[in-house]
């Protein structure tokens, strides 16, 4: 533990020394630099162009020009309203709608402009550093790389920039920006009664978080706790039941003397191959009150009335876990089959000479090996199951509905399906955003705690 905190304080101090270093570079470069460098503080890329590096300098200059154009024509007006998210409401004048501020767009484009400013600051710093480096090269009597060399380096030493430019931009616009946007929404009153563009919404501080943890009537507290517990339990059951049964099936197929191994595997793999929306919707109807399972049991006289597989909350939870076994085993079987073959056969041989029973061999050779190797998989599978939307949604749609739950949650709702319903059915965006943040916190906590316990990370050479 002390080790970890030491590490943390170390990383904090390196962070601050890095920040200090950045300011030092900015300062000393300005003091020591020539006039070309000094002008570059205002006009990015000037120094480079003046020294004949047109491609590099042109790129810096273009970024600055683009920034000025963007902020002055588009971003600026949104950024200035970010503090209030708009004050002029849309109203009707002589049957004509006069549009006021659109809080949604103000928040979205305001954030985009903020990010653009951050991007410009980084480019500005790189521009200064580049100037300093060029002066150094000139002082040392070396030749600066020309535009052609700069261009070619994008396919050689700077190939990473070429490769990553598009993916990083994509992640930024379609993941980072929306996530930051939604985190902000959690601190506003954006919901069905405050819909843009006709209505405004505004900042409300921590009110939504208070509502989530409020156990008074109308508060989300008790519902949130129940849904959270079911989410955690579900992920635990879904991960570990599938894991052990999957390994068991893989061992059964791998067993000496069992023939047609490929055939058995192929039959199971059908579940992965057929799109889940087809197979899961069919399976959900098999358990329907009028479906094949209830019908057959009734015809055989085993039950008198239909078993409410999907309408009884407890039964629905059990059924989901059972159906998930049907989905999960084939994946685990495929994975385990490959891994089991990696266990050295002489381990088993020497164990059986020592008179070990099959169970003992499983307990002391197979399981430790599998757990060691698949530790990271188990962790990511657990967090994946926390967010396992498809299985829940296609089987029950989160139902059965419950009167005692707030926010339209149902008996089998996970946090993510609840989030989805709030967005679609209730358009309660602010609470959906709060739930989303909670999912993130839960996932992050699990990762942080579990990661250090994984045997393969604690002891990389452990299983040799």
């Amino acid at each position, binding site marked *: 533990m002390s080790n970890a905190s030491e590490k943390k304080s170390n990383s904090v101090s390196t962070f601050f020394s890095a920040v200090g270093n950045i300011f030092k570079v900015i300062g000393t470069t300005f003091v020591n630099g020539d006039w070309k460098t000094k002008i570059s503080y205002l006009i990015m890329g000037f120094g480079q162009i003046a020294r004949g590096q047109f491609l590099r300098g042109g790129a810096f200059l273009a970024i600055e020009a683009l920034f000025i154009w963007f902020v002055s024509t588009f971003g600026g007006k949104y950024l200035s309203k970010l503090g209030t998210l708009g004050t002029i409401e849309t109203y009707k004048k002589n049957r004509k709608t006069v549009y006021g501020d659109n809080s949604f767009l103000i928040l*979205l484009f305001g954030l985009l402009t903020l990010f653009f400013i951050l991007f410009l600051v980084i480019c500005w710093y790189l521009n200064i550093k580049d100037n300093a480096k060029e002066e150094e090269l000139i002082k040392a009597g070396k030749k600066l790389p020309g535009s052609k060399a700069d261009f*070619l380096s994008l396919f*050689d*030493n700077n*190939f990473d920039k070429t*490769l*990553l430019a*598009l*993916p*990083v931009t*994509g*992640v930024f616009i*379609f*993941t*980072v*920006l*929306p996530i930051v*946007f*939604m985190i902000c929404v959690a601190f506003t009153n954006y919901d069905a009664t405050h819909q843009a563009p006709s209505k405004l919404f505004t900042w409300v501080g921590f009110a939504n978080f208070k509502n989530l943890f409020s156990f008074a009537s109308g508060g989300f507290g008790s519902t949130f706790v129940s849904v959270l517990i079911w989410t955690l339990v579900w992920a635990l059951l879904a991960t570990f039941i599938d894991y052990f049964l999957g390994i068991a099936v893989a061992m*059964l*197929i791998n*067993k000496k003397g*069992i023939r047609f191994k490929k055939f*058995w595997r192929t*039959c*199971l*793999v*059908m579940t992965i*191959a*057929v*799109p889940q*929306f*087809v*197979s899961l*919707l*069919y399976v959900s*109807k*098999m358990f329907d009150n009028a479906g*094949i399972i209830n*019908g057959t049991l*009734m015809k055989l006289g085993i039950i008198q009335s239909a078993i409410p597989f999907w309408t009884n909350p407890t039964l629905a939870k059990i059924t989901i876990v059972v159906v998930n076994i049907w989905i999960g085993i084939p994946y685990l079987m495929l*994975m385990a089959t*490959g*891994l089991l073959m990696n266990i050295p056969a002489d381990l088993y041989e020497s164990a059986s000479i020592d008179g070990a029973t099959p169970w003992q061999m499983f307990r002391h050779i197979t399981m430790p090996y599998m757990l060691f190797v*698949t530790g*990271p*998989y188990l962790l990511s599978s657990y*967090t994946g199951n926390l*967010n396992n*939307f*498809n299985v829940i*949604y296609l089987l029950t749609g989160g139902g059965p509905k419950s009167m005692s739950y707030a926010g339209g949650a149902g008996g089998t709702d996970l946090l*993510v399906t609840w*989030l*989805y319903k709030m967005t679609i059915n209730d358009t309660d*965006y602010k609470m959906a955003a709060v739930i989303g943040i909670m*999912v*993130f916190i839960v*996932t*992050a906590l699990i990762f942080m705690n579990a990661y250090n316990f994984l045997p393969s990370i604690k002891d990389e050479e452990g299983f040799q």
Partner: protein
Amino acid sequence: MARESSMKRKRAVSNFFGYVALIIITIIWLFPFVGLVLGSFRSYDAAVEYGGIVDYVIPKHFSLDNYRFVLGGETNYLRWYGNTVIIAFFVALFQMIIILCVSYALSRMRFAGRTALMRFWFVLGMFPGFLTMICLYFLLKEMGLTQAGAIKGLILVSVASSGMGYYVCKGYFDTIPKALDEAARIDGASRARVFFEMILPISKPIIIYAALVAFMAPWNDYIFASYIAFGHDASYNVAVSMYRWMNTGDYQGYFTRFCAGGVLVAIPVTLLFMFLQKYYVEGVTGGAVKG
């Protein structure tokens, strides 16, 4: 001798139970697919049979009514099917390219901010995907890529963030010895040439794996597709359009038609998967070990 024969008998008995277990497992696992296919041959014509949910599997009368319904012009089924194929194809193509680029850069090159980028993406991955749904919808709407343009919009969203799914592919690249790169670099090959002429040709298994996984996902995409294409029938994919046949009250008795549509969806995807199964298994096993 006696001991050996008892061992043999023991093994035969345990194998017998093994077979029994496997046969039961196989029946359970294949039952829904058999039921689906049989259901698709049950008529929805009230004069012949009921097209809703019934408590028997084998249809009383064999009929092709459902296939006639989905393939005939009564619905947009062929359109929906085509939409899904287009989305799946382009998502697979672009996603594969992006994942290869990211994986190569992260596996082979050491640049400032590399670990920071990986850590940042890892943390981003902990946010639930549907959180950003509304925001993405309005972003796409600003670009005119919702409703009528939903297909392009769906491709764009699926491809844009796919760089974060580099783990399996990077793990594969990490196993290719760096000495290969270095030797080629000493001979004067640029990074780009190493990537295109050395790494890519020996990465066929992982390329196929990445493309296959990317190709299969859009067939299941209900949530996002339904949100972006909302109310615009011609932009639906199969999952969105056929979900209604199962779960909307107005479509009582569409169960068998869902079965027929489902069979038509399942056949090509399943065949493709079975054909490329080898690569899938390699990817899954490798990915599990490296996490």
